[in-house]
């Protein structure tokens, strides 16, 4: 079948004629598959979660994503499973049966989304104990989560012959023909369509479309371009811009310890399964969680255009509120992190909620300390200016100084005056300032001696 289509619960469904702004959730509900629900339309509640068959090397993984954020058109050629596809009231899937038995549903509205997140974890090939964090992107207002957690922990492993488990042993479907096949084609499309919107995981664009009514006359999907999906840790660490954060986490396998501190605090698995590292830098949010860390790591951004390639230090990347040096027709292809990595690194995120919240202040530390003296110090900040920034004065206050409580106290006072924090609904300016200084004090208390 060459016409655009998506396979839903084993059945091919045409995508022809579906408006560009229609998201996968509305598309599925229009098919009568009303199990997935709209709870927030911005990827915060997970009531719309469905499973998509995504590449995992030569195999594949059932990957839960927020259907409300994914444009229906982006599913061309893909395989999707919804709660209805997992089981029926008469023949419940093991995950569904356990949720029902344990009292994991009350009003039931969030339940199909929970079931999809749980099923993905259930099918994780290397699953040891069930990781309940797999459900941290799903909100429930009724149960208080205890029965859901217990249902998850009571799950066994898929049995032999489980069709969805077996599906994972084969490759994921190739990207649909409506997507550009390679980088050169994508760059050509951008050249020919100056008004094009570049979309990767759509975790930001989907919110714009759903909540703010933004519409794109032309979309170029870049998250499956092969050139943007490479990852290397051999010399320089180079991460393909089109890899999702979940893929980056898995691919790096601990090679950058500072990033491993970020992942559990970065949105939710449902978002990390969609959001790409390139997209995170291109949207240039001043309150993103990655930029402070990548600034501390002295990362750079590799950009391709029809004229060739250029590399920009991340410190020079942000030019204003949600603005970057990325020019028309250009695409981010990768992010480079130089070695050697600093010896002492930490990520401090201040937010109202422990998981799946937007930071009011985020601080990334990368310090080299040898013989009790601070060598190089790199500190990235989020939430305290119109762009993510480096804490240059604090870095200077630390470099060359003995790594002592006295140095930390002096530098913490410098750090609290960095940026221009403001009052908003997340935090007061005074709290943000206090949190900047305390981030360094906390680092000292936890790792100083």
């Amino acid at each position, binding site marked *: 079948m060459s016409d655009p289509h998506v396979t839903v619960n084993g059945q091919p469904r045409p995508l022809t004629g579906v408006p560009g702004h229609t998201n996968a959730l509305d598309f599925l*509900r229009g098919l*009568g598959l*009303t*199990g997935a*629900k709209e*709870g*927030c339309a*911005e990827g*915060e*509640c997970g009531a719309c979660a469905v499973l998509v068959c995504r590449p995992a090397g030569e195999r594949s993984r059932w990957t839960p994503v927020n259907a409300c954020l994914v444009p229906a058109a982006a599913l061309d050629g893909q395989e999707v499973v*919804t*709660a*209805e596809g997992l*089981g029926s*009231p008469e023949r*419940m*899937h093991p995950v*569904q049966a356990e*949720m*029902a038995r344990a*009292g994991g*549903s*009350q*009003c*039931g*509205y969030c*339940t*199909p989304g929970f*079931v999809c997140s749980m099923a993905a974890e259930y099918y994780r090939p290397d699953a040891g104990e069930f990781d*309940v*964090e797999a*459900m*941290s992107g*799903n909100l429930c*207002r*009724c*149960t*208080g*989560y*205890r*029965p859901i*957690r217990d249902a998850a922990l009571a799950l066994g492993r898929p049995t032999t012959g489980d069709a969805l488990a077996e599906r994972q042993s084969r490759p994921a479907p190739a990207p649909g023909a409506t997507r550009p096949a390679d980088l050169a084609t994508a760059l050509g499309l951008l050249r020919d369509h100056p008004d094009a919107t570049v979309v990767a995981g759509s975790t930001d664009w989907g*919110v714009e479309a759903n*909540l703010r009514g933004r519409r794109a006359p032309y979309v170029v999907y870049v998250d499956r371009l092969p050139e943007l999906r490479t990852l290397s840790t051999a010399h320089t660490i180079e991460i393909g811009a089109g890899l999702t954060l979940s893929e980056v986490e898995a691919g790096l396998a601990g090679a950058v310890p500072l990033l491993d501190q970020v992942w559990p605090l970065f949105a939710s698995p449902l978002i990390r399964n969609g959001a790409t590292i390139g997209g995170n830098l291109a949207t240039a949010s001043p309150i993103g969680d990655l930029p402070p860390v990548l600034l501390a790591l002295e990362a750079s951004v590799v950009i391709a255009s029809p004229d060739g390639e250029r590399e920009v230090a991340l410190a020079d990347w942000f030019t204003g509120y949600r603005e970057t040096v990325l020019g028309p027709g250009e695409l981010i292809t990768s992010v480079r992190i130089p070695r050697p990595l600093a010896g002492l690194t930490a990520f401090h995120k*201040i*937010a*109202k909620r*422990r*998981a*799946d919240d937007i930071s009011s202040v985020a601080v990334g530390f990368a310090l080299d300390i040898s013989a009790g003296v601070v060598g190089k110090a790199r500190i990235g900040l989020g939430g305290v200016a119109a762009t993510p920034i480096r804490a240059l004065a604090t870095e200077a206050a630390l470099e060359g100084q003995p790594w002592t409580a006295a140095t930390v106290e002096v530098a913490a006072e410098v750090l609290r005056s960095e940026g221009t924090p403001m009052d908003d*609904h*997340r*935090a*007061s300016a005074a*709290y943000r300032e*206090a*949190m900047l200084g305390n*981030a360094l004090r*906390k680092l000292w*208390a936890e790792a100083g001696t």
Partner: protein
Amino acid sequence: MSVGQALPHESAALHVTGHALYTDDLVHRTHHVLHAHPVCSPHAHARVARIDTGPALEVEGVVRVLTADDVPGVNDSGTKHDEPLFPDMVMFVGHAVAWVLGETLEAARLGAEAVEVDYEPLPAIVALTEAIEAESFQGNQPVVARGDVDQGLTGATHVFTGVTEMAGQEHFYLETHASLALVDEAGQVFVQCSTQHPTETQEIVAHVLGLHSHHVTVQCLRMGGGFGGKEMQPHGFAAVAALGATLTGRPVRLRLSRTHDLTMTGKRHGFHASWRVGFDDDGCLQALEATLTSDGGCSLDLSEPVLARALCHVDNAYWIPHVRLHGRVARTHKTSQTAFRGFGGPQGMLVIEDILGRCAPLLGIDPIALRSRNFYVDGQATPYGQVVRHPERIARAWQQVLDTGQVASRQAEITEFNAAHEHTKRGLAVTPVKFGISFNFTSFNQAGALVHVYKDGSVLINHGGTEMGQGLHTKMLQVAATTLGIPLAKVRIAPTRTDKVPNTSATAASSSSDLNGGAVKDACEQILARLRAYADGRDVAWDELVREAYLARVQLWAAGFYRTEGIHWDPAAMQGHPFKYFAYGVAAAEVEVDGFTGAHHTRRVDIVHDVGDSLSPLVDLGQIEGGFVQGMGWLTLEDLRWDESDGPGRGRLLTQSASTYKLPSLSELPDELNVALLEHATEDGVVHGSKAVGEPPLMLAFSVREALRAAVGAFGRPGASVELASPATPEAVFWAIERGRG
């Protein structure tokens, strides 16, 4: 025996497989549906000078724009005639002045953007304190009083004064408001609606359309959460959909986006309380004088009964000899605040818990001892004159929590931990709950049911309550099966409809199992009595008995009715016996606080809660845990912020999406959560000895707030009183720590 069995929710298999249908799911099964989108005010307070719908009608796919001129009946969406459906004076940012109907939601949205509205902005009152300053009040100003407060305070050896402020709370039911209206083949206006109060939805749809109630049927399949937010608020939306359906002849769907739901619908009332309290040397409460002012928002809605319940719960579990409590409802230019699980009870109780938490160090008495020595004992009455029945249950639950929660030994461990950790402190607290069950307004304490026994022995039940996840239907199935003495599988429940059971009360006040259970039981007993009379002592199997009885012309269906006996209330005097009984509970919570940031998490919670003889233990457990976590959200995390600046956004809700309004996620679940149902707790005179459970557990979360207070105190100087904002967000906790250090 089905009652008392631990069963999953009756729709659990449908929930988990995505087969349970909610109102908006029906859109995809209905043809030629039109979609409605509001035209919302950008001003908090303004006169609507002109509305031009013409440009909207130019938008492709726009079918009609609804305005005040289209209303054939009464242009009002409430019961107090202060909530015009199409206002000529907007009273909050987001107030809808018109609704656009389109072939698609996209067309309706673009149409709404095209409608031209001229506003004449007026000064707006946003913050509750501004309203108090400006004396902007609405409705009654009731007083609950007993004894002589002045004398009580004079006689007290320790007198303290203070102010306690608490924020409201967004319901954040996962399913936003939804209605689907059509005119059926018989000319009946049929509205599918996510409503906790189908009868009132029916009445308001009827008066907007200028019809009698018998012309309108409202059905609620189930709700994706309600929590009180769908008690009054759905009516106007249902009326808009019904108006659109009658005017266009096509089904009209109205489902609010999350942002519309957050900005257009009412929330839990924030409260301001100023108080003066007296204790004797033993810490026994002597007198309390307080003025409670609720933030009612732009119209009365349910603010008066919410205030009444707040005043009736300031005492919580404590005997206070001399009391004078004033209540006021402020009018502000915000959404019309409304019912929310607890219905003012939590706000009233927070006042006394805040007083005890703040005063304990000043009295030099451990908070656990201070609370328990003030508990009601047998024979004592509440300030509004109701004798407290079974007060010993509070003490019994308290002791059980102290024992099973190993509170004494853990307190010692915490003291050790705190001494060893400069930057991290732990705190533990125990708090009680006493919550009155019944609607304060006596008339609402009635319910109906319709039970059909079919010739094949199968049973279909209908009752006046709605299902929003609380497990009411599960309990009603169990009551029917038990009463009839048949297996649960023989009983089926049909969706709540106003043409099956009329004149229903809202599914609210935790009382729906009591009321509807009584009605279902009554209907089943009527049928059973007829069957027994027919059987005349013979032992005949159910199916056979039913078949024979039919042939013998025995009536096999019945309408059941129940009204709560023994309750009365004088709203003018604020005295009486408004509650059938009290539900009790006790919780102990332990928290850990990071001194650098104020971030906190709950390590362990132990709860003993009184549900009488549980009708359905798994359902009750779910209500206790879910209510507790929702209460934690209100007290420690959820943070409604309104623009109180003088800028152009004044009055705007700043936290108007899921990314800015944070409710508890899995990460807030306590590491350890132990819940036990109080044993030997049969409640006489209630269906199968059970007790209501919907609201009371929410207030068990006071234990977390008080534990935070203890942990904050551990950073500061011993014996200092700790003031803690509500909600106690990480930032609020941080500043409390800083004040203590200062």
